[in-house]
Protein backbone atom coordinates (compact mmCIF):
# COMPACT_ATOMS: atom_id res chain seq x y z
CA UNK A 1 0.00 0.00 0.00
CA UNK A 2 1.35 3.39 -1.01
CA UNK A 3 2.08 5.68 1.93
CA UNK A 4 1.74 8.62 -0.44
CA UNK A 5 -1.79 7.54 -1.38
CA UNK A 6 -2.66 7.16 2.29
CA UNK A 7 -1.36 10.67 3.01
CA UNK A 8 -3.32 12.18 0.13
CA UNK A 9 -6.49 10.28 1.07
CA UNK A 10 -6.21 11.48 4.67
CA UNK A 11 -6.79 15.05 3.50
CA UNK A 12 -3.57 16.39 5.06
CA UNK A 13 -1.47 18.93 3.18
CA UNK A 14 0.99 16.68 1.38
CA UNK A 15 4.59 17.55 0.60
CA UNK A 16 6.77 15.75 -1.90
CA UNK A 17 10.28 16.67 -2.99
CA UNK A 18 12.63 15.67 -5.73
CA UNK A 19 16.09 14.21 -5.63
CA UNK A 20 18.43 13.64 -8.54
CA UNK A 21 20.68 10.57 -8.70
CA UNK A 22 24.39 11.21 -9.27
CA UNK A 23 26.38 11.03 -12.46
CA UNK A 24 28.41 7.97 -11.50
CA UNK A 25 28.16 5.43 -8.75
CA UNK A 26 29.15 7.51 -5.76
CA UNK A 27 25.90 7.48 -3.78
CA UNK A 28 27.11 9.47 -0.75
CA UNK A 29 25.48 12.73 -1.88
CA UNK A 30 22.13 11.26 -2.76
CA UNK A 31 22.11 9.18 0.45
CA UNK A 32 22.69 12.40 2.38
CA UNK A 33 19.72 14.03 0.64
CA UNK A 34 17.48 11.02 1.29
CA UNK A 35 18.52 11.00 4.98
CA UNK A 36 17.76 14.71 5.21
CA UNK A 37 14.33 14.54 3.57
CA UNK A 38 12.82 11.09 4.04
CA UNK A 39 11.02 11.86 7.31
CA UNK A 40 10.05 15.41 6.38
CA UNK A 41 8.11 14.68 3.18
CA UNK A 42 5.35 12.26 2.14
CA UNK A 43 7.17 11.13 -0.98
CA UNK A 44 10.51 11.53 -2.71
CA UNK A 45 10.60 11.69 -6.49
CA UNK A 46 13.67 10.21 -8.09
CA UNK A 47 14.38 11.69 -11.51
CA UNK A 48 14.94 9.54 -14.60
CA UNK A 49 17.92 10.72 -16.67
CA UNK A 50 16.55 14.22 -16.20
CA UNK A 51 16.94 16.59 -19.15
CA UNK A 52 18.19 13.56 -21.12
CA UNK A 53 21.47 13.64 -19.19
CA UNK A 54 22.73 10.18 -18.23
CA UNK A 55 22.63 9.51 -14.50
CA UNK A 56 22.46 6.65 -12.03
CA UNK A 57 19.03 5.13 -12.74
CA UNK A 58 15.82 6.35 -11.12
CA UNK A 59 15.03 2.72 -10.30
CA UNK A 60 18.29 2.44 -8.29
CA UNK A 61 17.63 5.74 -6.57
CA UNK A 62 14.05 4.78 -5.71
CA UNK A 63 15.23 1.47 -4.30
CA UNK A 64 17.73 3.35 -2.15
CA UNK A 65 14.93 5.60 -0.82
CA UNK A 66 12.91 2.50 0.03
CA UNK A 67 15.85 0.76 1.72
CA UNK A 68 16.52 3.86 3.79
CA UNK A 69 12.91 3.97 5.01
CA UNK A 70 11.55 6.70 2.74
CA UNK A 71 8.59 6.70 0.35
CA UNK A 72 9.90 6.67 -3.22
CA UNK A 73 8.07 8.04 -6.25
CA UNK A 74 9.66 6.39 -9.26
CA UNK A 75 9.85 8.78 -12.21
CA UNK A 76 9.59 6.91 -15.49
CA UNK A 77 10.04 8.51 -18.86
CA UNK A 78 9.22 6.92 -22.20
CA UNK A 79 12.41 8.19 -23.81
CA UNK A 80 14.88 5.41 -23.08
CA UNK A 81 12.91 2.15 -22.98
CA UNK A 82 10.45 0.32 -25.18
CA UNK A 83 7.30 -1.29 -23.83
CA UNK A 84 9.03 -4.53 -22.83
CA UNK A 85 11.71 -2.73 -20.82
CA UNK A 86 9.17 -0.39 -19.17
CA UNK A 87 6.91 -3.26 -18.09
CA UNK A 88 9.86 -5.30 -16.84
CA UNK A 89 11.15 -2.34 -14.78
CA UNK A 90 7.67 -1.73 -13.40
CA UNK A 91 7.40 -5.35 -12.22
CA UNK A 92 10.85 -5.17 -10.70
CA UNK A 93 10.06 -1.90 -8.92
CA UNK A 94 6.83 -3.19 -7.44
CA UNK A 95 8.40 -6.47 -6.34
CA UNK A 96 10.89 -4.42 -4.33
CA UNK A 97 8.33 -2.25 -2.58
CA UNK A 98 8.23 0.78 -4.86
CA UNK A 99 4.52 1.56 -5.19
CA UNK A 100 4.37 5.08 -6.66
CA UNK A 101 5.14 5.85 -10.30
CA UNK A 102 5.18 9.21 -12.03
CA UNK A 103 4.69 8.79 -15.77
CA UNK A 104 6.39 11.28 -18.06
CA UNK A 105 7.03 11.56 -21.77
CA UNK A 106 10.67 12.51 -21.19
CA UNK A 107 12.69 15.34 -22.69
CA UNK A 108 13.99 15.08 -26.23
CA UNK A 109 17.31 13.27 -26.47
CA UNK A 110 18.94 16.22 -28.24
CA UNK A 111 18.64 18.51 -25.20
CA UNK A 112 20.87 16.16 -23.18
CA UNK A 113 24.41 14.81 -23.19
CA UNK A 114 23.95 11.84 -25.55
CA UNK A 115 22.64 13.74 -28.54
CA UNK A 116 23.16 10.89 -31.02
CA UNK A 117 21.15 8.36 -28.99
CA UNK A 118 17.82 7.02 -30.21
CA UNK A 119 14.78 8.53 -28.53
CA UNK A 120 12.50 5.54 -28.02
CA UNK A 121 8.98 6.86 -27.26
CA UNK A 122 7.48 3.46 -28.03
CA UNK A 123 4.80 4.55 -25.53
CA UNK A 124 3.77 8.06 -24.54
CA UNK A 125 2.85 9.18 -21.03
CA UNK A 126 -0.86 8.43 -21.49
CA UNK A 127 -0.14 4.99 -22.89
CA UNK A 128 2.30 4.30 -20.03
CA UNK A 129 -0.46 5.10 -17.52
CA UNK A 130 -2.81 2.81 -19.42
CA UNK A 131 -0.14 0.09 -19.44
CA UNK A 132 0.20 0.29 -15.64
CA UNK A 133 -3.57 -0.11 -15.40
CA UNK A 134 -3.44 -3.16 -17.67
CA UNK A 135 -0.63 -4.69 -15.57
CA UNK A 136 -2.73 -4.08 -12.45
CA UNK A 137 -5.53 -6.09 -14.04
CA UNK A 138 -3.17 -9.04 -14.38
CA UNK A 139 -2.12 -8.98 -18.02
CA UNK A 140 0.72 -7.43 -19.98
CA UNK A 141 0.49 -5.25 -23.09
CA UNK A 142 0.75 -8.37 -25.24
CA UNK A 143 -2.45 -9.66 -23.64
CA UNK A 144 -0.70 -12.41 -21.70
CA UNK A 145 -1.56 -13.36 -18.14
CA UNK A 146 0.81 -12.30 -15.35
CA UNK A 147 1.63 -14.37 -12.30
CA UNK A 148 1.12 -11.62 -9.75
CA UNK A 149 0.01 -8.13 -10.75
CA UNK A 150 1.56 -4.83 -9.54
CA UNK A 151 -0.87 -2.30 -7.99
CA UNK A 152 0.80 1.06 -8.40
CA UNK A 153 -0.34 4.48 -7.23
CA UNK A 154 -0.11 6.30 -10.56
CA UNK A 155 0.96 9.85 -11.14
CA UNK A 156 1.36 12.21 -14.06
CA UNK A 157 2.26 15.81 -14.70
CA UNK A 158 0.63 18.86 -16.24
CA UNK A 159 1.99 22.24 -17.29
CA UNK A 160 -0.56 24.84 -16.13
CA UNK A 161 1.42 27.71 -17.69
CA UNK A 162 1.76 26.11 -21.14
CA UNK A 163 0.88 28.23 -24.13
CA UNK A 164 -1.46 27.39 -25.73
CA UNK A 165 -3.04 25.82 -22.64
CA UNK A 166 -6.03 23.95 -24.06
CA UNK A 167 -4.05 21.13 -25.77
CA UNK A 168 -2.26 20.51 -22.43
CA UNK A 169 -5.57 20.33 -20.61
CA UNK A 170 -6.94 17.86 -23.14
CA UNK A 171 -3.93 15.66 -22.47
CA UNK A 172 -4.36 16.16 -18.72
CA UNK A 173 -7.89 14.77 -19.06
CA UNK A 174 -6.62 11.85 -21.14
CA UNK A 175 -4.11 11.07 -18.38
CA UNK A 176 -6.86 10.99 -15.78
CA UNK A 177 -8.98 8.77 -18.00
CA UNK A 178 -5.94 6.48 -18.38
CA UNK A 179 -5.78 6.11 -14.61
CA UNK A 180 -3.69 8.97 -13.18
CA UNK A 181 -4.49 9.29 -9.47
CA UNK A 182 -2.15 12.14 -8.58
CA UNK A 183 -0.69 15.03 -10.52
CA UNK A 184 2.49 16.94 -9.82
CA UNK A 185 2.44 20.15 -11.82
CA UNK A 186 5.30 21.78 -13.66
CA UNK A 187 6.63 24.73 -11.66
CA UNK A 188 4.08 27.48 -11.08
CA UNK A 189 4.85 30.99 -9.82
CA UNK A 190 1.76 33.03 -10.63
CA UNK A 191 -0.77 32.01 -8.02
CA UNK A 192 -3.61 33.83 -9.78
CA UNK A 193 -3.04 31.72 -12.88
CA UNK A 194 -2.76 28.64 -10.67
CA UNK A 195 -6.05 29.45 -8.96
CA UNK A 196 -7.72 29.56 -12.37
CA UNK A 197 -6.14 26.26 -13.30
CA UNK A 198 -7.32 24.69 -10.06
CA UNK A 199 -10.89 25.97 -10.60
CA UNK A 200 -10.83 23.79 -13.71
CA UNK A 201 -8.79 20.88 -12.32
CA UNK A 202 -10.93 20.47 -9.21
CA UNK A 203 -13.67 19.01 -11.40
CA UNK A 204 -11.63 15.84 -11.80
CA UNK A 205 -11.15 13.01 -9.37
CA UNK A 206 -7.40 13.42 -8.98
CA UNK A 207 -5.07 14.75 -6.28
CA UNK A 208 -2.99 17.74 -7.30
CA UNK A 209 0.36 18.85 -5.93
CA UNK A 210 1.54 22.30 -6.99
CA UNK A 211 5.06 22.17 -8.41
CA UNK A 212 7.64 24.62 -7.09
CA UNK A 213 11.15 25.02 -8.45
CA UNK A 214 13.37 26.81 -5.93
CA UNK A 215 14.53 30.15 -7.33
CA UNK A 216 18.21 30.70 -6.57
CA UNK A 217 18.86 34.06 -8.25
CA UNK A 218 17.30 36.62 -10.58
CA UNK A 219 19.54 35.30 -13.35
CA UNK A 220 18.28 31.76 -12.86
CA UNK A 221 14.66 32.97 -12.99
CA UNK A 222 15.33 34.87 -16.22
CA UNK A 223 17.12 31.86 -17.66
CA UNK A 224 14.12 29.64 -16.96
CA UNK A 225 11.74 32.17 -18.50
CA UNK A 226 13.83 32.17 -21.63
CA UNK A 227 14.73 28.49 -21.86
CA UNK A 228 12.33 26.25 -19.98
CA UNK A 229 9.02 25.62 -21.77
CA UNK A 230 6.00 26.22 -19.55
CA UNK A 231 7.80 28.09 -16.75
CA UNK A 232 7.06 31.78 -16.26
CA UNK A 233 8.47 33.66 -13.28
CA UNK A 234 6.58 36.96 -12.95
CA UNK A 235 8.66 40.17 -13.00
CA UNK A 236 7.89 41.15 -9.35
CA UNK A 237 9.54 37.92 -8.16
CA UNK A 238 12.57 38.56 -10.37
CA UNK A 239 12.77 42.09 -8.96
CA UNK A 240 12.54 40.72 -5.42
CA UNK A 241 15.49 38.39 -6.10
CA UNK A 242 17.48 41.14 -7.82
CA UNK A 243 16.82 43.66 -5.05
CA UNK A 244 18.72 41.85 -2.27
CA UNK A 245 22.45 42.15 -1.54
CA UNK A 246 24.81 39.67 -3.18
CA UNK A 247 24.76 36.29 -1.48
CA UNK A 248 21.20 36.73 -0.21
CA UNK A 249 19.40 35.62 -3.38
CA UNK A 250 19.12 31.96 -2.37
CA UNK A 251 17.65 32.94 0.99
CA UNK A 252 15.14 35.15 -0.83
CA UNK A 253 14.27 32.28 -3.16
CA UNK A 254 13.64 30.09 -0.13
CA UNK A 255 11.41 32.80 1.36
CA UNK A 256 9.45 33.04 -1.89
CA UNK A 257 8.96 29.25 -1.95
CA UNK A 258 7.90 29.20 1.71
CA UNK A 259 5.46 32.08 1.16
CA UNK A 260 3.89 30.29 -1.81
CA UNK A 261 3.57 27.01 0.12
CA UNK A 262 1.92 28.85 3.01
CA UNK A 263 -0.60 30.55 0.68
CA UNK A 264 -1.40 27.36 -1.19
CA UNK A 265 -1.99 25.58 2.11
CA UNK A 266 -3.98 28.35 3.79
CA UNK A 267 -6.23 28.87 0.79
CA UNK A 268 -6.53 25.09 0.27
CA UNK A 269 -5.60 25.77 -3.34
CA UNK A 270 -4.20 22.28 -3.91
CA UNK A 271 -3.75 18.96 -2.10
CA UNK A 272 -0.13 19.75 -1.45
CA UNK A 273 3.13 20.85 -3.03
CA UNK A 274 5.98 19.21 -4.89
CA UNK A 275 9.33 20.90 -4.29
CA UNK A 276 12.04 20.71 -6.91
CA UNK A 277 15.18 22.19 -5.37
CA UNK A 278 17.46 20.97 -8.19
CA UNK A 279 20.86 20.65 -6.54
CA UNK A 280 19.83 22.58 -3.39
CA UNK A 281 18.03 19.73 -1.67
CA UNK A 282 19.62 20.68 1.66
CA UNK A 283 17.45 23.84 1.76
CA UNK A 284 14.16 21.92 1.68
CA UNK A 285 13.79 21.21 5.43
CA UNK A 286 14.30 24.90 6.16
CA UNK A 287 11.79 25.95 3.47
CA UNK A 288 9.22 23.62 5.04
CA UNK A 289 9.88 25.11 8.48
CA UNK A 290 9.54 28.64 7.13
CA UNK A 291 6.27 27.63 5.45
CA UNK A 292 4.93 26.12 8.64
CA UNK A 293 4.46 22.65 7.18
CA UNK A 294 7.45 20.93 8.82
Amino acid at each position, binding site marked *: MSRLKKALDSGKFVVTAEIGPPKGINLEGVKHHIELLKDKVDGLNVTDNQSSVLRYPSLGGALLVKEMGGEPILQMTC*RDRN*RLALQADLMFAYSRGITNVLCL*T*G*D*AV*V*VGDHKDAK*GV*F*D*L*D*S*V*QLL*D*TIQILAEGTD*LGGNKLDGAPQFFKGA*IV*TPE*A*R*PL*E*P*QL*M*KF*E*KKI*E*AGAQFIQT*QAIYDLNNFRNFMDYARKFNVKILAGLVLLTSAGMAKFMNKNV*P*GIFVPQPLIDELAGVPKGKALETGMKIAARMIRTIKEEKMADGVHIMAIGREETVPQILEMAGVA
Partner: protein
Amino acid sequence: MKTITRQKPFEQILEDLAQDSSVFIIGCGTCATLCGTGGVKEVAEMSEKVASAGKIVTGTAVPPTGCDEVTAEMRRAFKTELRAADVILVMSCAFGVQTAASQLNKPVAPALDTLFVGKEGPAGQYSEICMQCGQCVLADTAGICPVTTCHKGLLNGPCGGTNDGMCEVGNGRECAWTLIYNRLQKVGRLDRMRRYHPPRSHNAVLRPGIMTLTHSREEAAKH
Protein backbone atom coordinates in the same frame (compact mmCIF):
# COMPACT_ATOMS: atom_id res chain seq x y z
CA MET B 1 7.50 14.19 -52.95
CA LYS B 2 11.28 14.33 -53.14
CA THR B 3 14.05 12.39 -51.56
CA ILE B 4 16.14 14.90 -49.68
CA THR B 5 19.88 14.33 -49.71
CA ARG B 6 22.98 16.02 -48.31
CA GLN B 7 26.49 15.68 -49.67
CA LYS B 8 28.89 13.80 -47.42
CA PRO B 9 32.07 15.61 -46.33
CA PHE B 10 34.61 15.15 -49.13
CA GLU B 11 37.17 13.55 -46.78
CA GLN B 12 34.62 10.85 -45.99
CA ILE B 13 34.00 10.25 -49.71
CA LEU B 14 37.75 9.95 -50.26
CA GLU B 15 37.96 7.45 -47.42
CA ASP B 16 35.38 5.29 -49.17
CA LEU B 17 37.41 5.58 -52.38
CA ALA B 18 40.74 4.78 -50.71
CA GLN B 19 41.23 1.47 -52.53
CA ASP B 20 40.30 2.87 -55.92
CA SER B 21 42.29 4.75 -58.53
CA SER B 22 39.57 5.18 -61.18
CA VAL B 23 36.04 6.41 -60.60
CA PHE B 24 32.86 6.71 -62.66
CA ILE B 25 30.39 9.25 -61.28
CA ILE B 26 26.61 8.96 -61.59
CA GLY B 27 24.24 11.79 -60.62
CA CYS B 28 20.47 12.03 -60.76
CA GLY B 29 18.29 14.31 -62.87
CA THR B 30 15.39 14.39 -60.42
CA CYS B 31 15.59 14.72 -56.63
CA ALA B 32 19.36 15.17 -56.30
CA THR B 33 19.28 17.83 -59.04
CA LEU B 34 16.52 19.68 -57.16
CA CYS B 35 18.44 19.39 -53.89
CA GLY B 36 21.60 20.70 -55.56
CA THR B 37 23.47 17.59 -54.48
CA GLY B 38 23.76 15.46 -57.62
CA GLY B 39 22.80 17.43 -60.73
CA VAL B 40 24.96 18.22 -63.76
CA LYS B 41 26.75 21.05 -61.93
CA GLU B 42 27.50 19.07 -58.76
CA VAL B 43 28.66 16.05 -60.72
CA ALA B 44 31.09 18.28 -62.67
CA GLU B 45 32.39 19.80 -59.42
CA MET B 46 32.80 16.37 -57.84
CA SER B 47 34.61 15.16 -60.93
CA GLU B 48 37.16 17.98 -60.57
CA LYS B 49 37.65 17.36 -56.87
CA VAL B 50 38.11 13.63 -57.32
CA ALA B 51 40.60 14.29 -60.12
CA SER B 52 42.57 16.75 -58.03
CA ALA B 53 42.74 14.11 -55.29
CA GLY B 54 44.80 12.07 -57.74
CA LYS B 55 42.18 9.72 -59.12
CA ILE B 56 41.15 9.13 -62.70
CA VAL B 57 37.57 9.99 -63.51
CA THR B 58 36.70 7.62 -66.33
CA GLY B 59 33.39 9.35 -67.04
CA THR B 60 30.23 10.90 -65.61
CA ALA B 61 26.54 10.55 -66.31
CA VAL B 62 23.38 12.20 -65.01
CA PRO B 63 20.44 9.92 -65.90
CA PRO B 64 16.92 11.44 -65.71
CA THR B 65 16.15 9.39 -62.60
CA GLY B 66 18.96 7.82 -60.62
CA CYS B 67 16.65 5.52 -58.72
CA ASP B 68 15.09 3.80 -61.73
CA GLU B 69 16.86 1.13 -63.66
CA VAL B 70 20.20 2.01 -65.10
CA THR B 71 19.13 1.71 -68.71
CA ALA B 72 20.76 -0.57 -71.23
CA GLU B 73 21.18 2.59 -73.29
CA MET B 74 23.32 4.18 -70.61
CA ARG B 75 25.33 1.04 -70.12
CA ARG B 76 26.01 0.98 -73.87
CA ALA B 77 26.84 4.68 -74.08
CA PHE B 78 29.37 4.45 -71.24
CA LYS B 79 30.52 0.89 -71.79
CA THR B 80 34.27 1.67 -71.87
CA GLU B 81 34.15 4.29 -69.10
CA LEU B 82 32.20 2.02 -66.79
CA ARG B 83 34.48 -0.92 -67.47
CA ALA B 84 37.58 1.19 -66.75
CA ALA B 85 36.30 2.33 -63.36
CA ASP B 86 37.27 0.59 -60.10
CA VAL B 87 34.24 2.06 -58.37
CA ILE B 88 30.98 3.90 -59.11
CA LEU B 89 30.54 7.06 -57.04
CA VAL B 90 26.82 7.75 -56.87
CA MET B 91 25.45 11.24 -56.29
CA SER B 92 21.83 10.31 -55.75
CA CYS B 93 19.72 9.01 -52.88
CA ALA B 94 20.44 5.57 -51.42
CA PHE B 95 17.93 4.14 -53.88
CA GLY B 96 20.18 5.17 -56.78
CA VAL B 97 23.25 3.76 -55.02
CA GLN B 98 21.54 0.40 -54.56
CA THR B 99 20.31 0.37 -58.17
CA ALA B 100 23.84 1.05 -59.45
CA ALA B 101 25.26 -1.65 -57.19
CA SER B 102 22.79 -4.29 -58.28
CA GLN B 103 22.97 -3.53 -62.01
CA LEU B 104 26.54 -2.53 -62.79
CA ASN B 105 28.44 -5.27 -61.01
CA LYS B 106 30.98 -2.88 -59.57
CA PRO B 107 31.78 -1.61 -56.07
CA VAL B 108 29.79 1.52 -55.24
CA ALA B 109 30.29 4.48 -52.92
CA PRO B 110 27.58 6.93 -51.89
CA ALA B 111 28.51 10.61 -52.20
CA LEU B 112 25.28 11.65 -50.50
CA ASP B 113 23.45 10.87 -47.29
CA THR B 114 19.72 10.31 -47.71
CA LEU B 115 17.85 12.34 -45.10
CA PHE B 116 14.13 11.96 -45.66
CA VAL B 117 11.27 11.90 -48.11
CA GLY B 118 9.87 15.40 -48.09
CA LYS B 119 7.60 17.90 -49.68
CA GLU B 120 8.85 21.16 -51.14
CA GLY B 121 7.71 24.32 -49.41
CA PRO B 122 8.61 27.92 -50.10
CA ALA B 123 12.08 28.87 -51.37
CA GLY B 124 13.87 25.53 -51.39
CA GLN B 125 12.54 24.42 -48.03
CA TYR B 126 11.67 20.77 -47.65
CA SER B 127 9.78 19.13 -44.85
CA GLU B 128 9.33 15.51 -43.92
CA ILE B 129 5.73 14.42 -44.25
CA CYS B 130 5.43 10.66 -43.82
CA MET B 131 7.39 7.90 -42.07
CA GLN B 132 5.43 5.09 -43.75
CA CYS B 133 4.26 3.69 -40.40
CA GLY B 134 1.46 1.65 -41.96
CA GLN B 135 -1.36 2.94 -39.68
CA CYS B 136 -2.48 6.35 -40.81
CA VAL B 137 -4.04 8.56 -38.11
CA LEU B 138 -4.48 11.69 -40.22
CA ALA B 139 -8.29 11.67 -39.75
CA ASP B 140 -7.78 12.49 -36.06
CA THR B 141 -5.06 15.05 -36.60
CA ALA B 142 -6.45 17.32 -39.32
CA GLY B 143 -4.09 15.93 -41.91
CA ILE B 144 -0.90 16.74 -39.99
CA CYS B 145 1.10 13.62 -39.15
CA PRO B 146 2.12 13.47 -35.47
CA VAL B 147 4.29 10.41 -36.05
CA THR B 148 6.42 12.45 -38.45
CA THR B 149 5.92 16.07 -37.43
CA CYS B 150 6.19 15.62 -33.64
CA HIS B 151 9.85 15.06 -32.74
CA LYS B 152 8.81 12.28 -30.35
CA GLY B 153 6.07 10.89 -32.58
CA LEU B 154 3.49 11.31 -29.80
CA LEU B 155 -0.06 10.18 -30.54
CA ASN B 156 -1.98 11.58 -27.58
CA GLY B 157 -1.21 15.28 -27.56
CA PRO B 158 1.67 17.64 -26.80
CA CYS B 159 4.42 17.00 -24.26
CA GLY B 160 5.55 19.63 -21.76
CA GLY B 161 8.29 20.78 -24.11
CA THR B 162 5.89 22.79 -26.24
CA ASN B 163 6.39 26.53 -26.03
CA ASP B 164 4.29 29.14 -27.83
CA GLY B 165 3.92 26.82 -30.78
CA MET B 166 7.57 25.81 -30.92
CA CYS B 167 9.23 22.49 -30.05
CA GLU B 168 11.86 22.04 -27.34
CA VAL B 169 14.37 20.68 -29.85
CA GLY B 170 14.79 24.18 -31.28
CA ASN B 171 16.16 24.90 -34.75
CA GLY B 172 12.88 26.52 -35.70
CA ARG B 173 10.90 23.30 -35.32
CA GLU B 174 7.22 23.93 -34.71
CA CYS B 175 5.22 21.95 -32.17
CA ALA B 176 3.21 19.45 -34.22
CA TRP B 177 0.47 19.28 -31.63
CA THR B 178 -0.04 23.04 -31.64
CA LEU B 179 -0.35 22.89 -35.43
CA ILE B 180 -2.80 19.99 -35.13
CA TYR B 181 -4.80 21.76 -32.41
CA ASN B 182 -5.04 24.97 -34.45
CA ARG B 183 -6.15 23.20 -37.60
CA LEU B 184 -8.63 20.89 -35.82
CA GLN B 185 -10.16 23.99 -34.30
CA LYS B 186 -10.36 25.64 -37.70
CA VAL B 187 -12.15 22.68 -39.27
CA GLY B 188 -14.44 22.17 -36.28
CA ARG B 189 -13.08 18.79 -35.21
CA LEU B 190 -11.39 19.59 -31.89
CA ASP B 191 -13.23 16.63 -30.32
CA ARG B 192 -10.89 14.36 -32.31
CA MET B 193 -8.02 15.44 -30.11
CA ARG B 194 -9.70 13.86 -27.09
CA ARG B 195 -9.50 10.37 -28.59
CA TYR B 196 -7.13 7.95 -26.91
CA HIS B 197 -4.67 6.33 -29.26
CA PRO B 198 -3.26 3.01 -28.03
CA PRO B 199 0.44 2.26 -28.59
CA ARG B 200 1.35 2.06 -32.25
CA SER B 201 2.22 -1.30 -33.78
CA HIS B 202 5.77 -1.45 -35.02
CA ASN B 203 4.77 -4.57 -36.85
CA ALA B 204 2.10 -3.06 -39.13
CA VAL B 205 4.66 -3.46 -41.87
CA LEU B 206 7.15 -6.24 -41.30
CA ARG B 207 10.50 -4.62 -42.02
CA PRO B 208 11.99 -4.76 -44.53
CA GLY B 209 8.73 -3.94 -46.29
CA ILE B 210 7.96 -6.28 -49.17
CA MET B 211 4.65 -6.23 -51.02
CA THR B 212 3.36 -8.25 -53.94
CA LEU B 213 0.65 -6.32 -55.74
CA THR B 214 -2.18 -8.51 -57.03
CA HIS B 215 -5.37 -7.78 -58.97
CA SER B 216 -8.49 -6.80 -57.06
CA ARG B 217 -9.66 -9.39 -54.54
CA GLU B 218 -12.57 -10.48 -56.71
CA GLU B 219 -10.29 -11.03 -59.66
CA ALA B 220 -7.71 -12.76 -57.54
CA ALA B 221 -10.43 -15.13 -56.32
CA LYS B 222 -11.23 -16.12 -59.92
CA HIS B 223 -7.64 -17.07 -60.67
